[in-house]
């Protein structure tokens, strides 16, 4: 691994550590408890390593479907082992789809109104 790649990894690790820290702090506040720095670091490290496993699974699933791009379907497969998680991820995926559909609608709507404006000017 080159020094450049190594640095990117370190940065990513730091980003994960940061987010884990904030999530833990927030959850801790709700229960009037603090997470020790070591605990946060351990959770962050575990999450970081877990990413590697997730990535390998996602890649394998995509390959199996003869794709080179990982899609939301592959993510759903990664979540399949726990029913609750699987349902949660499926709902999230639908939410994402819905949002995108709405965005598209908005954009085409705008374009249409602009078209009619131009027409009326003519």
């Amino acid at each position: 691994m080159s020094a450049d790649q190594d640095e990117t990894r370190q940065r990513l690790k730091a980003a994960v550590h940061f987010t884990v820290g904030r999530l833990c702090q927030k959850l801790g506040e709700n229960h009037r408890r603090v997470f020790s720095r070591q605990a946060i670091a351990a959770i962050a490290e575990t999450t970081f390593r877990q990413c590697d496993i997730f990535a390998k699974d996602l890649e394998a699933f995509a390959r199996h479907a003869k794709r080179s791009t990982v899609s939301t379907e592959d993510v759903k497969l990664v979540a399949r082992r726990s029913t609750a998680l699987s349902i949660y991820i499926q709902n999230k995926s639908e939410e994402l789809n819905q949002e995108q559909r709405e965005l598209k609608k908005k954009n085409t709507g705008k374009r249409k109104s602009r078209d009619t404006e131009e027409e009326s000017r003519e």
Partner: protein
Amino acid sequence: MAEQDAEIGFRKDTVSKLLSGSFKEEKTKLSGDAALLMAEMLKVFVQEAAVRSLKQAESEDSDQVDIEHFEKVLPQLKAAVLPSLLHATSSKAHLCSSVEQQVLPACSMVPFIKASWSSWKQLE
């Protein structure tokens, strides 16, 4: 950064880089939606680890959630991926040995979210 105030989570490009870096084939890519969904997945993973550790700390009447609390919930959190977790934490000898001594269930990802929601209610 309105997103930061509203909800804490992983950023899309962070997740994207994180996963892309681990792909074996260079041509494998990650779709935008998949990255967003994985960000959600990772958030759940962290919350699950945190809430389980919190519960463990509470059961031991500890005001601080410490590494040993996380250490105790680690096997049930991710039994299937344990080989790599062992590797991940091998620098912390005590963490490693205590995990090794546990007899592990064969399933993975255990009840995950379910546990966090029900245990939350109990805590509150």
